[in-house]
């Protein structure tokens, strides 16, 4: 895996998926949204399964400091 593989576009009709993702959160409190996001992350992580890929994603989004 490389940065490229992570960044290659793979989803058809991105606007539509993005809208569905946001729509999921309609009317939710921040806490409910966080809960939903957590479930989504866990489901997606399990689907990906490959620990090397997951680790690469973790480091791709890791920030240096809480402010960063």
């Amino acid at each position, binding site marked *: 895996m490389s940065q490229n593989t992570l960044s290659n576009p793979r989803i058809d009709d991105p606007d539509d998926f993005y809208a569905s993702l946001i729509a999921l959160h309609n009317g939710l409190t921040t806490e409910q949204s966080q809960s939903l996001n*957590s479930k989504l992350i866990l489901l997606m992580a399990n689907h990906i399964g490959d620990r090397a890929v997951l680790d690469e994603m973790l480091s791709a989004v890791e920030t240096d400091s809480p402010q960063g």
Partner: protein
Amino acid sequence: MRGVRQIYPFTRPPELDTDKRTRVPVIIVGAGPIGMAMGLDLDLQGIPNIILDDDNKVSIGSRAICWAKRALEVVDRLGCGERMLDKGVTWNLGKVFFGDRKDPVYGFNMLEEEEQQFPGFINLQQYYAEEYLIDEIDKRELTSIRWENEVTAVSQGDEGATLSVSTPEGKYQIDCDYVVAADGARSPLRKMLGFDFGGETFQDHFLIADIKMKAEFPAERWFWFDPPFNRGQSALLHKQPDDVWRLDFQLGWDIDREEELKSEKVSERIHAMLGDDFEFDFEWVSIYTFQCRRMDRFVHDRIIFTGDAAHLVSPFGARGANSGLQDVDNLGWKLALILQGKAPARLLESYNDERIAAAKENILNSTRATDFITPKSEVSRIFRDATLELADEFEFARRFVNSGRLSIPTILDDSTLNTEDHDSFDSKLVPGSPAIDAPVKINGKESWFLKSIGNNFTGVYFARQGANAPEGAAQLEHDDIPVNTLVVSDMDVAGSGLLLDHKGLLKQRLDGQPGTYYLFRPDQHVVARWREFDSQAVRDAVARATMQAH
């Protein structure tokens, strides 16, 4: 209350009446489960030792109840395993409940393979285990306990160590070659010597109530996250012998300790959990905060730390006494070989390395469980609850649920004492694994494999035909560090030391094709194995496992 437990009388030590200094090979400080097990192991190894304890009774508070399979196997080698098994409540199943759901979201089984002498776990009050150890010590020649003998100072030099001991009738000093510190989590010895004990204390309180009641719950470990009777917190229910049950309520960080300990308040909690119309008596109630800590090194020249004195874990996972007993298992034979002049003192480094690796593993598991049970941040809590909600529907999420990963033995696969495999084996065991049990017959009598190995280096040979040991095996029995060879056969032929593998399970579990030879350490761990017996290879493996210079 806890029945009445015995008081062990102080007897005046001879040192108080003479100027002659006593010297013993090993002095053990602390008659908790770990110190007493150490005394028994050294006795089996022929090493005289004295156990000093500042108190005169067994541990009666709410302490260990869950004894894991490997710990039971160790204690069985020391002579008390069957008594613990007979008295204890056997269990293998754990269930996890969440919120208002009636059905568990997750269940686990601690016994992966049936047909072993000991189950995944038994529950037994720590005071029973300690009493059995005391009874066994009373039967032995080379170990004894001195009650109300408090160690107040320790010093060491090139030749050994000296302890200052305070008793109700006066003080004395005593010399030894080695000190085993088994003086518990607050280890006065560790403090006297100024050694650090790094780690963390978790910001949470747990109310532990041992109660006596007649109840029909099964002998399983039941754990609740966020149950209706303890909203936002966790709870645990566990069965002990004598109709005693352990209830464990998470309370949170900001609590009024005194208020929480009032018996009306505790009763209220218990009734909310188990229903209104039943009766119970309190055995013991206390509030705990939990910690995960360990020393940087366990071996400091002549002073060796074991058990809670060396490492401390939160109880989720029952890795406290269970890992301490594995310290004993690891240390006994090494100390004996050193004291007999058969191995160099640096063999103790392997105790340090192997048991620090184990302590790290236990602390990691215990910390992760504690973080799941008591999330440290809002996000961590949200993920935790999300995991539990998913667990209902999605099997994968159940595996994230962590209510304590229960004690399983550490595999010492990184140990330098091991001889690497050159042949291939289709077995769960690797060099560094504790042996796995299996039913066998010896002289027509049903027995267990683990009862036939241990205390010495033992070779286990899967016979090609009949009951013949491989040529050259007999000579190994006369080496400085002897190796006795047991022959395993699935045919009922006469032969001394023959293990009849009547169910074929030993062969299966060890991948014991004919001709295979396993070498086990005195603590029953695999140290080397071959498809062909070669006495020189065995001697080299023993030399490596005992750090002999070549």
